[in-house]
């Protein structure tokens, strides 16, 4: 995945779900920090893990359904969003959502 693809996913989530703020976690998040990260395991991904600000599992499911794996969006663009929750990361810094 490259940064323009991450930006596209973020734009579509905002547009389709009327969400202004949400978290991006997982390997795609590196693209928010490094515009051109070295090619490797972190850039091999084609999915963007998204956590709604209020951690609503039903919104996560909607994101996965509309923009997720095997969606029309995925078939058209070759990358997709995956709605997850704050419980998804096995390890995360204390207070990472604050």
């Amino acid at each position, binding site marked *: 995945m490259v940064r323009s693809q991450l930006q596209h996913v973020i734009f579509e989530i905002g547009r389709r779900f009327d969400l202004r703020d949400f978290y991006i976690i997982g390997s795609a998040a590196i693209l928010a920090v490094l515009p051109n990260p070295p090619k490797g395991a972190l850039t091999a991904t084609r999915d963007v893990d998204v956590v709604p600000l209020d951690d609503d599992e039903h919104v996560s499911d909607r994101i996965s359904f509309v923009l997720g794996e*095997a969606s029309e969006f995925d078939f058209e663009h*070759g990358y997709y969003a995956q*709605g997850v929750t704050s419980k998804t990361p096995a390890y995360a810094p204390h207070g990472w959502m604050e």
Partner: protein
Amino acid sequence: MRPTSRDQVMQLLAVEPAGLSAPELMRLIRPRISQPTLWRTLDGLRAEGRIATQGRARATRYHATARIDLPALRSLRLHQLAARRLAADPELRRIAHQRLQKLHHANPHGRVYQDRWADLLGGSLPALLRTMTEASEQADALRKESPFTILVTPEERRRVFTDVRAA
């Protein structure tokens, strides 16, 4: 394809922080299963370390030892459907090949996964189907970059989302 009773138990426990008792599980599992079948299912999951118990006898509650990854479970279901279709018509590998080409253009950095799928597509069908439907973290990662969900119909996908969702 309906989730098995094992999958249903894991899914129900994964979204219930307080755990569930056997009668509660019996009420929630569809289609209904007998008590001996539930005991066998729970014993198998306990032997694999996938569930933990709290309390004793009739007060026993069951907990998932790790929260299940719903997107990974959905992906597995989608690939089970795609595998079934491929098994019935191996010529569909051609469509997966085309999809793989598109994925390569969209995500050149995913080459390590794409090459693995290309190798499997060129090999034996049983090995391909096994990898598509394997239950492991490694297979979960590989499935994220797979070209096979193109073989799943929108209606099948909708059913997967209905079956596998947050409680």
